[in-house]
């Protein structure tokens, strides 16, 4: 498994475990998490905490925008970008 795939897999596992609606609606990597109400403002805090503590991604104040968190794929791409920066 490539590093990028591994990152995606970890984020996917976390989202599916933490947000039951994601699991019951069988959310795919590119499906929307925000407008659908699956991840709310408090849920984002959980995602951020996981990225920082488990994946060691440093998140800046300006990173907390919908574009970085819209889907599992968006989160993974954002995390990969931050890790390589």
């Amino acid at each position, binding site marked *: 498994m490539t590093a990028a795939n591994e990152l995606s897999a970890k984020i996917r596992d976390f989202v599916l475990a933490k947000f*039951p609606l994601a699991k019951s609606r069988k959310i795919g990597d590119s499906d929307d998490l925000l407008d659908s109400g699956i991840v709310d403002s408090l849920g984002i*805090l959980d995602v951020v905490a996981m990225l920082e503590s488990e994946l060691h991604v440093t998140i800046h*104040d300006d990173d907390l925008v*919908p574009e970085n968190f819209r889907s599992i794929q968006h989160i993974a791409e954002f995390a990969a970008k931050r890790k390589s920066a």
Partner: protein
Amino acid sequence: MDFLTHHMLQSSARRTPEKEALVHGDERLSYKEVAGRVSGVATGLRRSGVNRGDRVGIYLDASVPQVLSIFGISEAGGVFVPVNAALFPEQVLHIARDCGMTALITSEKKLEGLAEVLPQIPSLKFVVLVGKTSSAKGHASLHSFEEFCGLKPSGTEEDSISKDLAAILYTSGSTGKPKGVMLSHANIMAGSSIVSKYLGITASERILAVLPFSFDAGLNQLMTAFQQGGTCVLINFVFAREVVQTLIKERITGLAGVPTLWSLLAQPNSTLDRQPLPDLRYITNTGGAMPQAVLAILRKTLVHTKIVLMYGLTEAFRSTYLPPEELDRRPTSMGKAIPDTEILVLNEHGQRCKPGEIGELVHRGPTVSLGYWGRPEDTARALRPNPLLPPELGDCEKVCYSGDLVKMDEDGFLYFVGRRDTMIKSSGFRISPTEVEEALFSSGKLRGAAVIGIPDEVLGQAIKAFVTPKDGEPVDTEALLAHCGQKLPRYMVPKLVEVLDELPKTSSGKVDYPALRRRENL
């Protein structure tokens, strides 16, 4: 004379028809437009069979149709039942069955999730769908919300009076499933007038409504704005900075929130401190005490803004507020009674407590609700005759026993001490421990389960569950929480689980909640 909820809208529409009433994203509606569509909705509802006093549910995200529905149902003579959009179909089913819902206004997307539960609502005559109308066509029990909006007023004479039931707001207590608090038109209008008075709300106000309308303080935002002829701005947000951007873009003057919102806004990533907000005249907090650290940040950041700490319970709509000039002297106080309201602190014998003595907060005034829908016993417990009235007056007045323990200082300011029962308050929501415990039990893996609220910086209280395994089998706490997540909305899912060999019990064999709290040093 305005005496029904929708009269407030109609009066503002007559006074200032072109004034901006409602904003959501790119949608901007004047009072004339809102009033016109509301009349259409009322006509549609009546033609479809809504009669005076019928309950009509609104299960929608914050949106223009949500607001039009509230006033449309009122104008049709019905009772509006706003359902929190975060609830799951099972909880929607409970509400719909409990209040005997005649009709439900929802969206195409939400209807998909409801497909299974709708047939289990025997009282439901029809559904009104917002958005795509294709599926509404040709289906006898489905109507198009947009078509309703375009209908001409029917000119039916109004027969409701201000004492009639206007709304039912569902909220939790310490046990069982959510109960419906009944508000009359008079309650809602008194709440708007009173809050407008002490916050000084006028037609120039631009209120950002972030709290759901299923929550009394949220509904009050919309009502005060429309009563005073101001502007109500709606928002769906995930990131705190989206709130900040809307404050700036819409030149918001008033914002009401719960502690969770302020905790999110106080974090640097919200960007609240990056630019001044000269238009923001006031913010109000309700739904739990604002953490002192958060309050300090907001006071430093929002230098031009009055910070008003408030307290209310759905059963009495709104109760107390702390005037901003008292914030320095009494930052932990809930304040004093709102206008035209008296707050009593009573001991177990129904007598007034002395300053510093702990007693139950009892509310008297025009916002005392009509009680709980279909639950006379619960109503009799919460709403009782005023024990301080002279006997000659008899039982002419009902006061609201809050279940909140408070004390009053020498100057009459109130301080929250705790709950009389086990009810939990998290993120502004009232949560019944038994509802969470039932969800835990339904996993089939437990012999015992008890939940309590523990302090949480962001949520106010977070839920901690204590569980005992069935047949000594190890409990997979992750799986248990995942199970709860399937059954309950996120705010009701415990944050922590501790496995115990036995739950502490009282001598009568019930779970000893105080003992569990002592374990947590509470």
